[in-house]
């Protein structure tokens, strides 16, 4: 962005937003700050799901439209495991592992054979998402599945200044999102595999030429990306419940997050998640009628002016 553009965007965005903030705090400070917290915690969930999506896209140029189905799968698996064992942590692990396994299978059995055919891969993922959604409906049914939060996270956190009470579980999402983000960053920046992945994002051909088994790196990345969707599913199963249709909703959310932030960038996903989460919750709190339209308008605007997202780089 040129300096002029930065000034333009600064002038276009900052004054109206600050006017809104001042008005919001003056009008009803409690509502304003609860909504902010709601936005950030929702962003946390969006980030966890979308980071897997962006990882896969960044390395493989594979827009995995079955990502939402993996989210749903993870949620159901988590529910079943929690039901059987009563251990939330085990449910998280199971959700991650099963989704990662399915993702690995998809990469090894299908996508490996159509490397570089972006559009065809996308089509295949559309087909997969329809099939997986229907298989889940068949096997699990259309009933609403709602996981319970672990005991120590159930109920509200009381006596917080200004906003009085807030859901413990939801509050916990915030640090969780940050931890996942930091772990992902460490993994990508400090480990060997992470470096290979980053190298692959920048130049797949060169990475292969240096003797790295690219297929292995691809498979690992796909598994981690899918696993994050499943992990997000288990978290979402507590806060948002699991039901057919959630897959499409989370897929759309992930798409918006990574498009706004810039595909392939984990930091971008975080940024996009915050923008989406905050826009969604403030929209619902202050202008419910057109709140959802509003979200998509943001997306269209970002793409119209930054075709590769805010932090996206040329492919």
């Amino acid at each position, binding site marked *: 962005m040129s300096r002029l553009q930065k000034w333009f965007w600064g002038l276009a965005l900052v004054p109206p937003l600050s006017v809104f903030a001042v008005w919001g705090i003056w009008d009803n400070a409690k509502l304003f700050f609860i909504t902010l917290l709601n936005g950030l915690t929702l962003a946390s969930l969006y980030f966890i799901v979308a980071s897997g999506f962006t990882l896969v*896209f960044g390395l493989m*140029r594979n*827009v995995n439209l079955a990502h939402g189905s993996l989210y749903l799968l993870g949620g159901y698996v988590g529910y079943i495991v929690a039901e059987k064992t009563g251990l939330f942590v085990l449910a998280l692990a199971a959700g991650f592992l099963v989704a990662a396994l399915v993702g690995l299978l998809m990469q090894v059995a*299908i996508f490996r*054979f*159509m*490397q*570089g*055919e*972006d*559009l*065809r891969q*996308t*089509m*295949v993922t*559309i*087909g*997969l*998402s*329809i*099939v997986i*959604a*229907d*298989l889940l*409906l*068949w096997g699990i049914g259309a009933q609403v599945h709602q996981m319970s939060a672990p005991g120590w996270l159930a109920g509200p956190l009381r006596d917080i200044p200004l906003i009085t009470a807030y859901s413990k579980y939801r509050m916990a999402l915030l640090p969780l999102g940050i931890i996942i983000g930091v772990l992902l960053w460490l993994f990508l920046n400090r480990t060997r595999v992470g470096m290979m992945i980053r190298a692959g994002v920048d130049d*797949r*051909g060169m990475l*292969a030429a240096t003797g790295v088994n*690219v297929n292995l790196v691809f498979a690992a990345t796909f598994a981690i990306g899918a696993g994050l969707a499943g992990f997000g599913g288990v978290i979402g199963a507590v806060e948002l419940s699991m039901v057919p249709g959630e897959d*499409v909703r989370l897929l*759309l959310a992930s*798409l*918006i997050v990574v*498009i706004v932030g810039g*595909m392939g960038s984990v930091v971008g996903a975080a940024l996009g998640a915050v923008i989406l989460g905050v826009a969604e919750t403030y929209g619902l709190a202050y202008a419910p*009628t*057109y709140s*959802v*339209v509003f979200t*998509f*308008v943001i*997306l*269209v605007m970002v*793409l*119209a002016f930054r*075709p*590769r997202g805010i932090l996206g780089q040329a*492919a």
Partner: protein
Amino acid sequence: MSAAEWRNAMNAGSGRLAMGKVLVLPPQEKTESWTRKNPIRARHVLVLGFLLAFPMYATPFLTYQIGAQSLALGLIALSLTFLGGYGGMVSLAQMTVAGVAGYMLAVFGASGEAALSLGWSWWIAVPIAIVIATLVGTAIGWLSVRTEGIYTIMITLAVGVAFYYLCLQNYSVLNGFQGFQRVYAPTVLGINLREPVPFYFLVLACALGGYFLAKYILRAPFGIAMQGIRDNPRRMNALGFHVMAHRVAAYAVAGLIAAVGGVLFTWYNGLVTPGSVGTSWLINILVIAVLGGMRHPIGPFIGAIVFVLLQTFAIDLIDRERFNLVIGGVFLAIVLFSPDGLLGLWAALKSRFPSGSKFLTPRGGIR
């Protein structure tokens, strides 16, 4: 530069398609050889004869629900094939353009919502609806030509979903969740176009019109330039073509085709609601286009027939509950084993093994 020279340039370039481009669709060799000679073959007469005679021996139900619906959907999907197969821009918002036409038809024409519809005659309302929808299609194009490949899919999906929520939430103009009921085809010259057979012929005429319009444009210099841009925008730019303008113009043409299809589809249903422009329909149009194959303008119609047949009769073969499994499975099988859809399958069968294997083995390697 003449069209013939362009074709040569294009064919020469087709071997090096893979360079640097995100989105690559197969070149149109078959179409080219066809257009060069342009003979009317037996199969063309056969197909046309079949289409004309269809209502004579089919029940009104088959004429209307299978025949007319397939052709109307095929027309909408044709606009996607035109953009995606020949322009290299896969837009998921073509159903949105069709929906805009349907909504405008209901707003300007007559509907069950007397308080919201202006109730103008069809010969005013239909052109207005088509013009507005075409403009919307062009505007969507103008927004999305800045993006490429996968991003185009995403931005058009976003535009489509935004329009869906707008329809859902706006009651003052678009009547919200209920949408518009009783949006019926008019009676023209004493012929009630709501009747299955007249409506079938109306849709058939429009579908043939769209088909030949697409064929004509694809052979015209503009269409050749468009295909050139699909294959290598940088080279075309260097040759002095305004890449963006060509792409936006392609969206405009596709918008027109989708708008006509939208008017017909709305008349077919007799209603237009947010559900008609929801995510599932956006995807369905892509499914239809890919199912049929994007290599030839006939593809979307074949895809639509298969889609409508599946949708209507799958419940007699299996549980309706598992219908989506069938649709998803068929779609998956097609994209996995024949990237060029049913047309590709046909071509593979026809030419047996040598060229058949070409469609079955993925191209690629790491780029």
